[in-house]
Structures are given as C-alpha cells and as structure tokens.
C-alpha cells in the first residue's frame, strides 16, 4: 500500500495548472517505431514552444504540452490517455492507428476531441457519426487513390499488376477495401503482401514480389518496416520509380539507410517539405537557438518534423477558432471540438503564420471531418538528400471513397448505437 501512496503522490505532483491550454503529446521515442516517432513529436512540441516564447501562447493563454511515451503500444497508449485526460487535455493526437481505435469510443464518451491527421479510422471523416474524431486534411483512402492516380498518370493501368506491401495491422489493412474497389473500376490486378509487426524481416515478401513481378508496389509501412522494405526492394533491383509509399513511408529516415539505391523512391504527402519557410526563422530564433527544442533538436526540416509541426499548427489554429467562437481564452475540450469543426485553413492564414503554401486549403464541417483529401507525390533525390514534390496537390477519387466512408461509418453507428446527426 506504500507503493499506492507514492504513486498517488506522483499523480498529484503532476497535477494540473488549469489556466494552461493542455496539449498531450502521446509520443514514442523508444521501440521499433522511434525513428519516425521522434521527429513528429519534436515538431509538435517545438511549435507550441514557439507560440509560448514568441506570442505568449494561444490568444494570450500559454500552451502546455504533456509528453507521454506510448512506444506505439496500445496498452501504454490507454494508460497515457487516462493519465492525461484529467489535466484538461484539449485534443489527442496519438500518431498510431491502433491507439486511435482504442480511443475513439473513449474520447467520444469523455467529450474530448481527437485529431488523427492522415491516419486512424478513415470513416471518421463522417462527422455525423464520429462527433469527436477529426482526420483532416487527408486520410488513408485518399492516399490509396492518389497512388493509383499517380500510376495512371504514367500510363495505362488496365491489366497491370499492383502489389500492396502493408503493415499487418489495422493501419495497413485500411486501404485494402479502397484498392479493391479501384481495381474493379480501373481493371488492374491487386496483390496483397502483408508484413507482420515490426517488419524487420521481409525476405519472403520481397521474394514473392520478385517472383510475381508486379508492375508497381504501393507501401503502407511505418517504423523500421519502411527502411527494411526499401532496402529489400533495392536488393531485388525493383525500379524505385515504380515504388510508392503512403505519407507514413516517406521520411528521410526511411530512405537514407539504402543509400543511393533509394534514389527515385516516391512517397505521398499532404503538406509541403523542406525548411524554406519564414516560420523556420522564428523556430530557430526562439526555440532552437534558445536551447528549448524538444529532443535533440536536430530534426528541423525533416518530413516528419514538418508533419508534427503542421499537426500542432492545425491544433493551435483550431484552438484560436474555438476562442473566437466562445469568446474566452481558457477553452474546454468541448469548445475545442467546436473550434475544430469550424476550422478553416486559407492561404492568407498560412501566410500569416509563416507557412505560405505549406498545406492545402480546406474547411471542416460537421458533414466532413476529413478535409478535401488533397495530396501530392514527392520523390527522393539522393544527391541532394531531399524530397522533391513532382506533382501538385490533386484530389482523390471521391466517387469510390465517399460510398465506402458512408458504409463504414453507418456500420460503426449501428454497432455502437449512435444516432447520426450534427450537434
């Protein structure tokens, strides 16, 4: 019982200062997914540090980031959620589809919003069913459609064989339905190649690919699985320009281990890359040079750092929107939800923030929690060691995706007894 007392004291010690806007960061800096978890978390935290240092917070109220290590593990994710929700957490961003599935019912019951940017349950796009879950600006099914669109833009797709190499979990399985529909529509053959967690061993999968010779490979990977897949693809001399990853398989950490053999590998993205933005000057001045950067402070400008920063920026903008709607600086999770549902990102806004042209314009509404689903293709340039956008932001095939969203969200509504409707 002594242990109980000490742990209780520990919980007390970390107790809330209610005046802050609390943004929990469910990060993972350990385990097989750390290579991808670290830059995202650094970007997420640094943006809030910047707002605090430069502007004194959001709308005059300081932001407070509580970091909690999940290790990409759902049980630890649940523990983190329970440990932080009492502190007035405004929005959860677990960066894990598995944890997202755990938290969807919990956040809905507790009235806390969750933002799963480009991951999570795709049908959460339907805000009439998923009142507290947002996945703007793009989702997995958009990604699948972008990849197919890109392949189609390079030649006739009918009769081609396309392999999907995926993380054998809820995350990797998400695009299968969409790709099956698309294969019916466009007449290509789909080949499924699952890779089990954590994906360090993929010899048999790539042997299968070498034998069956698909024309293109689409990858839904994460963590160490990405690096291994790109190296294995290089080993079997699979042409890199025919290998395209979802945005979670497109960070520098994924391509660098394969060296020059990864040159030409493609990945999708829903925001811009690089560090050529006015915001970065401020980040360097107020955060990095002041020694306040999260982690080692060496991730600035990497693809996932940018994504973490983008996630934080959208959260901060939603908080601002919520402050305007409710006329108070000290917002609650319920107000934050309203802010997210009324969020509108325009070019003018992004320019004001210091990120001109960084992400697509979109507007969230109750009917559409998922944004417009715009995405672009980036290609790895080994010589320059950077990602280059090779297409503009394009839309996805909503004729295929929207019915699937409706179907899946209706199934969820029936399963959990939710009456679809706007609040």
């Amino acid at each position, binding site marked *: 019982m002594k242990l109980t007392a000490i742990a209780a004291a520990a*919980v007390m*010690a*970390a107790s809330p200062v209610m005046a802050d806007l609390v943004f929990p960061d469910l990060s993972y*800096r*350990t385990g097989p997914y750390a290579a991808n978890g670290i830059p995202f978390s650094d970007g997420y935290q640094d943006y809030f540090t910047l707002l605090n240092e430069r502007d004194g917070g959001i709308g005059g109220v300081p932001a407070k980031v509580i970091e909690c290590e999940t290790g990409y593990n759902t049980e630890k994710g649940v523990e983190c959620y329970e440990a932080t929700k009492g502190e007035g957490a405004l929005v959860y961003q677990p960066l894990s589809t598995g944890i997202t599935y755990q938290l969807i019912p919990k956040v809905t*019951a507790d009235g806390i919003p969750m933002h799963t940017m480009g991951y999570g349950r795709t049908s959460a796009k339907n805000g009439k069913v998923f009142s507290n879950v947002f996945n703007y600006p793009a989702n997995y099914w958009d990604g699948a459609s972008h990849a197919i669109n890109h392949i189609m833009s390079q030649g006739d797709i009918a009769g081609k064989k396309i392999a999907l190499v995926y993380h*054998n979990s*809820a995350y990797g399985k998400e695009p*299968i339905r969409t790709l099956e529909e698309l294969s019916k529509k466009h007449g290509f053959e789909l080949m499924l190649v699952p890779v089990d*967690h954590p994906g360090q061993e993929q010899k048999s999968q790539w042997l299968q690919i070498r034998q069956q010779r698909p024309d293109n490979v689409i990858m839904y990977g994460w963590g160490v699985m990405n690096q291994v897949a790109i190296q294995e693809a290089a080993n079997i001399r699979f042409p890199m320009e025919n290998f395209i990853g979802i945005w979670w398989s497109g960070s520098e950490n994924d391509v660098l281990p394969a060296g020059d053999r990864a040159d030409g590998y493609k990945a999708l993205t829903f925001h811009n890359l690089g560090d050529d933005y006015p915001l970065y000057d401020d980040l360097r001045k107020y955060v990095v040079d002041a020694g306040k950067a999260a982690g080692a402070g060496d991730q600035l400008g990497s693809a996932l750092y940018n994504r973490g920063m983008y996630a934080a920026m959208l959260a901060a903008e939603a908080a601002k929107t919520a402050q305007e709607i409710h006329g108070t600086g000290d917002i609650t999770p319920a107000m934050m939800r309203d802010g997210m549902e009324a969020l509108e990102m325009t070019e003018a806004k992004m320019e004001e923030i210091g990120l001109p042209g960084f992400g697509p314009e979109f507007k969230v509404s109750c009917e559409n929690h998922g944004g417009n689903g715009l995405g672009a293709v980036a290609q790895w340039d080994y010589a320059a060691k950077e990602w280059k956008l090779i297409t503009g932001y394009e839309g996805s095939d909503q004729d295929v995706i929207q019915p699937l969203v409706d179907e899946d969200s209706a199934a969820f509504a029936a399963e959990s007894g939710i009456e679809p409707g706007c609040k």
Partner: protein
Amino acid sequence: MFYREAGDFKTSYPEDSQTFPIKFDRYRYYVVLAVAFLIIPFIINDYWANAVFVPFLIYAIAAIGLNILTGYCGQVSLGTGGFMAVGAYSVYKLMTAFPEVSMLIHVPLAGLITAGVVTLFGLPSLRIKGFYLAVATLAAQFFLVWLFNKVPWFYNYSASGQISSPERDVFGIIVTGPNTEAWAKYMICLVFVTLAALIARNLTRGSIGRKWMAIRDMDIAAEIIGVNPMMAKLSAFAVSGFFVGIAGALFFSVYLGAAEVGESFGIDKSFLVLFMVIIGGLGSIFGSFAGAAFMVLLPVFLKNVFVGMLGWPTDLAAHLQFIVAGGLIIVFLILEPHGLAQLWRLAKEKLRLWPFPH
C-alpha cells in the same frame, strides 16, 4: 510473534487442512478481501482502474492459468498470448451474436471455448516434453495469431481487422464499452479473479492437483503409481486454458475495448505472462498475484516517479524503466530462484520465530 500458533488449536481435519491454517494469515486474507470488495470500488477513479487495477487483476487470472500448466503440471507453454486471443475472439463473437446475454455468461463460455482449443494444442504434450513442447506451443501462438488475422469471420468482416467491444451489461450495470464506470470495470474483474483463485487453489490441493504435481516431478514414477498421464496433462491444459481464456476475454472486452490480434496478443504477451509466473513463483497461487503485480505495477510506478515526480524526458524514463525492471528481474532470480512467493514464505517463517530466531 505475528504468526503465533500457540493457542490456535485445530479440532477437526477440515480445519487443519484449510488454506490459511494460521489465524493471523486467515484474518489478513479477510481484510484484503474486504478492502478489495468494500473499500476500493468506492474510491477508484478511471486512472487507477485502467492503468493499475484492471490490468493487474486480468494478468493475475492469466498467470494463475499458466501457473497451473507450467508451475503445477510442469508443461512449458509459450502460447499464452495466442490462447488469450482465443478467449478474446470467442467473447467478441458471443457478444455480437447474443447481445442480450449477460457478460457473466459470455466470459466463462469464452473460457470453455479456449479450454477446448488449448486441450487440442496440448495433445502433443503426450509425446514430447520440455523444450520441444515449448516449441510446439510457440507454433500454436503463431498459428492462432495468423488465423485471427487471416479469417475475416472472426472479426466480423470489419475493414481494419480490429475487434471492438460493444456495450454489454451485468444486471443492468454496463461493464464493457466506453461508458463503463471505473468501479464496474474493477468489480467484474475482481469477481472473476476471486473465483479463479478459489477454484485454482482448491483444484491444486485436491487429488487432481496432486496428480499434476506428480507428473511435474517425475512422469514415469507418476505413471507407475497409477496416475494416468494423458488425463493429468490434458486436464491441466484444459483448466489452464479456461483461466487464460477468461483473462483474454476480460482483457479485450473490459480493459482494452478494441484489439488487434498481432499487437495485443503477440508473442510478447506469452513471455510477459511466463515472466510473471517465474518471478512470482512456480506452483503458487499467491505467486501468480505477486508476479502480475510486479510486472504490471512496476513500469507504471517507475514511470510516475521518473516522469511525474522527477520530470525527466519520457524517452530516458522509458529506457531506464527497461533497465531497472530487467535488473530487478535478474536480481530476484539470482537471490530467490523460487520467486516472490518463496520470499513471502521465508518472511513468514522468520516472523513466526521472531524475536527468537532459534
């Protein structure tokens, strides 16, 4: 001093052979039960339920199950994660197929289904032993995970392969799903863990438990004195499977709420429960609780100390936690290879003689 036996007379055989023959022990046990049933439910909150008590109680059931198989009957199993998955997926299928039936029926039914599956995978134990049996159960682990991933019927054809537990009740009190009160979660697990411990304790000190232990200590000798090895081994697999299945069912439906077989019931789960049994003490019901407490509470405790109290970076804390937990496991195994249960036994012996050690 504390364990004074003077004046504690036994006048009948049942009294003499009860689980806690020493009066002080017996009262301590009643106090623990009273605190668990009458005090904790009224003060528990979401964090304590979800991060501490519910996982501890559920892992305790799993550890009791594995302890029967490995600790009492001597059959090493590395398939616990897969067997828990059987419990989880059976309770999911039952919950979705018969929504109006109480969870108090679904969970034991899931346990029975798991018992059947585990008995099936226990058949090789009649021919192979030791490490070879461990490898056979390892195969069961991988086969079951593959099966639940591969066959969409098990997850009701959901697009992501996830199973999520719908809202179900016991006597009108919601025990699964997101709207469950913390005390309800805690109570349903507590009821199952209490029953499991009572059943396990009484099985292991009865004739069937003696047969298991005879097989464990030397199977040829046991066969010569008239123990049927097939019945003894398969019954151990079945009983163990029943408890592990209940643990898996509660783990999915009450604790996690949504699960994915590869992540929630992977090989690491098998090792975790095996470590609990080894650290707690092979062949001891108390050891199952001690091991589960050690493996579940220590990480949460260390995390709260390192991050909550000392304010260290989370990655440093997470890595240090591995080092401290791993180091403690090694220290325990070197100093006391029979686990925490043996430490407890020794402490009791010392207390009985105290303050006159000779």
